[in-house]
């Protein structure tokens, strides 16, 4: 041997020691002495115990006693004081030394410095705790599932909201927290997404611990490894209940405003309606009276009476037509979407306004695009907008006496498959300070106006994916126009080649808003 065994032991990167069968230390290596700063005499017997942190010593002594009685090795983690007074964590591994007969004749051990490993482990635990806290602090619910789509983790908030345990939710158990009538639908959607590896995007209701269902928007996306294989699914559930309720309230408000506009428009129209119906009624009354007189004389004038009867029937038809038009304009339910011939819709409105146009000494000119494509929309609502804009234009000219009262109604085809309606008047124009406020609800420049017409008109046009705007004329007066697409977005012909890569979406559980 070129070197002594003690040289090996002193060189080993660890603190080596040996003790008698009854546990009294009789050897430590040089590194042990260097680390502790002890002399060999200080370490012998039980002296080494002074190098062990006092909090860790009882456990170490207990492990040593247990090993001596069982003759089994033990591993114990303790803090050992370095020569400079600093403590570091060590793993003490004690092993029995036996003779040929198997009797324990002594103990030897290796103390390994595990301070860096302990620190790393502690750092990892802290990061895990921080991550957990972060997940729990996100104002939304986080959930994960394994590659097969089996739910395996929820953040604390999720569990607290539902007051369900992870065990209850595990796998597909989470479906049980949804509204019973939505459960099957959401489950099938989820299974489909997992099968196709598609993200899921769904609006649904989820039961709170107190039994109240709230609306949630849930998005779940797959996480893939480098080879593209799905490893896990990550989901975020956002409580949108307040937002939904606000939207519903807004929608309700719009409908109320729309109803109020109908009433207001009806009031404005009543003069026209009275005129339209009084004319034929007047004819009926006069002709019937005449006919009676022609027949009741000494020599009845049958020819004349027949003529008056024919006129009576014709006038009655006229009155019935007026009523039919009114019924179509006001009594039909909202929300019916159809192909609307805008020119025809405008002609109907103009017919109703004929007497108002005449009484206001308004010179009406129409420029209709001959080949205007139909638009998909709600004819009644569009006619209300047209009516509103025409009535506004007529009223804007009611006090104009120094120039002709001219009304130009025009339809045009725009680029990008849109059609435009515009009405141009020679009235008082747009007050500069008011132009931004025109479309606000309850803003009006008219003494008797309710100020809801333009704001409701704009919301109707926006629901048709169009826009409504006002502009000043070169000369006197103003122009109001709207422009709407021929077919609303999403109704374009032919399937969209991109649909396969977009997230599967279902909104079937919320009521349709296509009004």
């Amino acid at each position, binding site marked *: 041997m070129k070197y002594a065994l003690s040289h090996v032991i002193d060189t080993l990167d660890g603190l080596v020691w040996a003790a008698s069968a009854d546990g009294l230390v009789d050897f430590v290596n040089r590194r042990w002495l260097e680390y502790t700063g002890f002399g060999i005499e200080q370490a012998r017997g039980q002296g080494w115990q002074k190098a062990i942190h006092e909090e860790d010593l009882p456990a170490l002594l207990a492990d040593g006693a247990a090993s001596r009685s069982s003759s089994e090795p033990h591993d114990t983690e303790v803090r050992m004081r370095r020569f400079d007074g600093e403590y570091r964590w060590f793993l003490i591994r004690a092993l029995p030394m036996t003779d040929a007969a198997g009797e324990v004749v002594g103990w030897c051990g290796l103390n390994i410095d595990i301070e860096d490993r302990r620190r790393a482990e502690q750092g990892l635990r802290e990061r895990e705790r921080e991550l957990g806290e972060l997940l729990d602090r996100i104002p939304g619910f986080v959930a994960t599932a394994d590659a097969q789509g089996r739910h395996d983790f929820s953040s604390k908030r999720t569990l607290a909201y539902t007051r369900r345990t992870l065990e209850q939710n595990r796998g597909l158990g989470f479906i049980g927290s949804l509204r019973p009538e939505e459960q099957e639908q959401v489950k099938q959607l989820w299974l489909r997404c997992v099968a196709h590896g598609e993200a899921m995007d769904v609006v649904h209701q989820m039961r709170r611990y107190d039994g109240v269902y709230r609306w949630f928007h849930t998005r779940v996306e797959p996480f893939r490894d480098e080879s593209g294989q799905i490893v896990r699914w990550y989901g975020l559930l956002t409580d949108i209940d307040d937002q939904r309720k606000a939207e519903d309230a807004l929608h309700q408000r719009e409908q109320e405003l729309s109803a109020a506009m109908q009433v207001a428009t009806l009031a404005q129209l009543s*003069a026209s309606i*009275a005129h339209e119906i009084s004319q034929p009624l007047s004819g009926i009354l006069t*002709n019937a009276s*005449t006919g009676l*007189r022609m027949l009741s004389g000494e020599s009845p004038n049958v020819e*004349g009476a027949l*003529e008056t009867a024919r*006129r009576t029937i014709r006038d009655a038809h006229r009155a019935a037509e007026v009523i039919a038009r009114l019924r179509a304009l006001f009594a039909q339910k909202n929300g019916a979407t159809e192909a609307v011939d805008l020119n025809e819709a405008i002609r109907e409105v103009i017919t109703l306004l004929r007497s108002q146009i005449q*009484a206001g000494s308004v010179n009406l000119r129409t420029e209709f695009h001959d080949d205007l494509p139909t638009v998909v929309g709600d004819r009644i609502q569009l006619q209300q907008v047209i009516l509103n804009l025409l009535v506004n234009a007529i009223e804007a000219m009611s006090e104009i006496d120094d120039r002709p009262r001219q009304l130009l109604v025009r339809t045009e085809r725009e680029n990008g498959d849109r059609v435009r309606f515009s009405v141009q008047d020679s009235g008082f124009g747009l007050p500069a300070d008011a132009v931004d406020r025109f479309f606000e609800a309850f803003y009006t420049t008219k003494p008797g106006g309710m100020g809801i017409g333009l704001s409701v008109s704009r919301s109707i046009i926006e629901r048709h994916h169009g826009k409504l705007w006002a502009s000043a004329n070169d000369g006197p007066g103003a122009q109001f126009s709207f422009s709407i697409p021929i077919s609303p977005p999403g109704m374009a012909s032919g399937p969209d080649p991109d649909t396969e890569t977009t997230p599967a979406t279902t909104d079937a559980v919320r009521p349709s808003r296509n009004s």
Partner: protein
Amino acid sequence: MVVRKLVSIVDDDESVRESLPDLLREFGFDVQAFSSAEEFLLSDHVGQTRCLILDIAMPGMTGPDLQRELKRKRWAIPIVFITANRDDRVRPQLIEQGAVDCLLKPFTETALLTAVNAALSQS
């Protein structure tokens, strides 16, 4: 031969021009109908007209415009206005300007006859 008194009608509504003359003829009047105030003024019946039945709202010259024009020309023709528009402010104004009556369409033959007779008693 009895000379029938001439009642003239000015109304842009064709159904009034075809129905009202027949009724007035049944009452025993001579009748002329015109579709506009301008047409009436240009006709040679203005002088013989004993009663003018006049619509209020018409394109171009309105009923009240014609009333003022006749007054300016000192043609003292009694006027019975007829209108389909109920506007309670208009009637007193027209009567103050000298109209005999203002009938709201639809009106009965009795109302018409009463108004026409009132007009004829003035002329």
